[in-house]
C-alpha cells in the first residue's frame, strides 16, 4: 500500500529533475548567462565608473607608496624598493591584496546587494534559470575584480618604470595578479554568502560587510595584538584568514620572504585547501539560498 502511494511521488521527483536538466538546450543557457554578464558588466561600468577610475589611480598609488616606504623608514611592509629590484612581488602583495579585496566586496554589494536584489525581480520574471542569474552575477563580480587588479598592476608597472627605470617581467605581473586575487576571491565568496543571507531574511545588505570585515581584518588584528602582546601566544594568529592567505601565496614570492622556510609543504597545501574550501562552500551555499529565495 505504501509503495503504491510512494511511486507517483518518486516518479514526480525524477520527472522534475529530468525537466530541470534537459528542459532546454545547454547552448541557450550559455547564451543567456553570457548576455546577463554583458549587460551587468556594462551597467557596472556605467554606474560605478567613478569608483573604478579611482581604483585605477588608488591601487597603483598605494602599491607604489608601499614599495618606496622603506626608503623613508615608514615601514608599511617588510619589503620595499629592494624587493622590486630583485623582481619580487612581495612589496605590494599585502596592501594590493587588501585594496583588491575592498574592490571585490564593493562589486559584490553592487551585484547582490539590496538595490540589485530588487532589480533581480525582473530577471526572476523572465524565462531564465535562477542558477544562471546567480552564476552570471558571480562571474561579473570576478571579472570586474580581475580586470581592476590587472589594470591596477599594469598602471603601477608603468609608474614604476617611468620613476625608477625598473619594470616587472610579464611572469611577475601574472604572479602579482594571482597573489592579490587569491584574497579578493575569498573575500568575494564570503561576502556574497552574507549578502544573500541578509537579503533572504530581509535585512539591509550593507550589514553583510560587517562579518567579512571581522573575519578578514578585525579578528586577525585583535588576535595578533592580544596573543602577541598580552598572552604571548603567536600561534593563535594561524587561525585567521589573513595568515592562511599569507602562507598560501608565500611560495610564489621571489625571493622567499622566509615564511616557508619555517613551514612544511603541508602547511602551504592546507592553506590552499582552507581558502579553496571556504570559497567553494560559500559559493555553493549562497547559490542554494539564492535559488530557494522568493522575490
Amino acid at each position, binding site marked *: 500500500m505504501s509503495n503504491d502511494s510512494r511511486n507517483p511521488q518518486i516518479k514526480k521527483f525524477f520527472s522534475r529533475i529530468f525537466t530541470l536538466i534537459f528542459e*532546454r538546450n545547454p547552448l541557450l543557457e550559455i547564451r543567456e548567462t553570457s*548576455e546577463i554578464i554583458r549587460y551587468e558588466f556594462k551597467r557596472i561600468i556605467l*554606474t560605478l565608473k567613478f569608483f573604478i577610475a579611482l581604483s585605477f589611480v588608488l591601487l597603483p598609488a598605494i602599491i607604489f607608496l608601499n614599495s618606496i616606504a622603506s626608503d623613508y623608514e615608514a615601514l608599511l611592509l617588510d619589503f620595499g624598493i629592494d624587493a622590486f629590484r630583485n623582481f619580487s612581488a612581495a612589496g605590494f602583495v599585502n596592501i594590493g591584496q587588501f585594496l583588491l579585496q575592498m574592490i571585490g566586496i564593493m562589486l559584490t554589494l553592487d551585484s547582490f546587494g539590496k538595490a540589485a536584489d530588487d532589480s533581480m*525581480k525582473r530577471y526572476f520574471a523572465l*524565462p531564465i534559470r535562477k542558477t544562471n542569474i546567480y552564476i552570471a552575477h558571480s562571474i561579473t563580480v570576478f571579472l570586474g575584480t580581475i580586470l581592476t587588479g590587472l589594470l591596477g598592476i599594469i598602471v603601477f608597472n608603468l609608474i614604476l618604470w617611468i620613476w625608477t627605470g625598473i619594470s616587472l617581467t610579464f611572469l611577475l605581473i601574472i604572479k602579482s595578479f594571482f597573489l592579490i586575487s587569491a584574497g579578493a576571491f575569498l573575500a568575494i565568496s564570503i561576502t556574497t554568502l552574507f549578502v544573500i543571507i541578509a537579503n533572504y531574511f530581509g535585512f539591509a545588505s550593507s550589514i553583510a560587510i560587517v562579518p567579512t570585515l571581522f573575519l578578514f581584518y578585525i579578528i586577525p588584528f585583535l588576535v595578533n595584538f592580544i596573543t602577541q602582546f598580552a598572552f604571548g601566544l603567536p600561534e593563535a594568529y594561524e587561525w585567521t584568514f589573513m595568515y592562511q592567505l599569507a602562507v598560501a601565496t608565500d611560495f610564489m614570492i621571489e625571493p622567499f620572504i622566509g615564511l616557508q622556510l619555517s613551514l612544511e609543504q603541508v602547511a602551504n597545501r592546507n592553506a590552499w585547501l582552507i581558502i579553496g574550501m571556504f570559497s567553494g562552500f560559500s559559493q555553493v551555499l549562497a547559490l542554494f539560498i539564492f535559488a530557494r529565495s522568493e522575490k
Partner: protein
Amino acid sequence: MDPIIRVENVSKIFGRYISRARVTSLRDIDFTVKKGERICLFGPNGAGKSTLMKSIMGLLKLTKGEIYIKDYNVNWNPLKVKQNIGYLPSDLNFYLDVPCKESIFHYGLLRGLSRKEAKQETERLLELVGLSKWWDLPPKLMSSGMRQRFSLSLAIIGDPEIILFDEPISFIDVQGKLKVYQLVHDYVKDSAKTVIMSTHNIQDALVMSDRLILMDRGRIIVDGPITEVITKRCKSMEIILSQDAPSMKDIIKAIGDEEFELSGRKILVRSKDALQISTTIVNKLQENKISVFSFRPFVEQRRNELVEKEEENS
C-alpha cells in the same frame, strides 16, 4: 474554450519555517481565466493581490494548491510559464543608469529573440510607449509617468500571451494615467491578450477590465463581470478597521454625505455607488495611515459567514 490560467485551491503562508509570526496571504483561491479575458484583482492594500500575481508568475512557492498556465504547472515548469507571461511589477525595478535601448534590447534577448529581432522590437516598443527620443538616455532622467511607460515596454517585449500588471499606474498623475490606460488598451484590444491587473482604484478597474475579482484578507469575496459586480453584488460595502481611529469620522465627512453607518471600527456604505465610494474611503484611510482590516460587500460577507458556520458544524 479551455482556460489559459487555472488557479486551484491556492494558499500561501509567509514565515512558515523561519518565523513564529505567520502571515496567511492567500486562502483557498480558486478561479480560471479564459484566453482574451481582462481581469482586475481589486481590493485594499494587504488583500493578497500582489501575492496572487507573484504566485501566478511562479515567483513564490505555494503553501497549498496548484497554478497552471496553458497546462504548465508554475512551480514545475517555471521557464515554460514565464515564456508566456509579461510581468509589470508594482515597483519600478530596473536599472536607472542604463540607457533605455540597452535595457529593452537585453530583456528581448533574454526572452529568446535574436539580436536582429530584439533590436527591431526595441525600436518598435520605444515608439509605442512614446519614448523614442529617449533611445540613448537613462531612465533616471525620466518623470515617474515616463518610467512607468518604460516599464510597460519591458513587460511586453517578446509579445507574451498573458500580461500581469501589478498596480501599473500607482505612482503617476492623472495625465500620465490616461496615457498608460490608452497604451494598455490599444495594445490589448487587437491582440486578444489575456490581462490580469491589480488595483485598489475602482476607476482603473472600470477602464481596464471586463471581469472583477474582489479580494479581502487573502480570499476571493466576489468574482464576476465588472458591471454586474458594481451594480448588483456590491450595493452595500462594509469596511472594518484594524484599530480604533478617532479621525475616521472627519475623513468620511470630508468625502461626502452618502449614507454611512458607523459603529466602532465598522463603516457600512449603502449606495448605488457603494463600491466606488467605499474604495475612496479605504484609499483616504490608508493615506492617513489608518489600517483597514477588512473590505467586503456586506450581504456577501454574511452569506460567507453562514456558509463557513455550516461547514464547521457539518
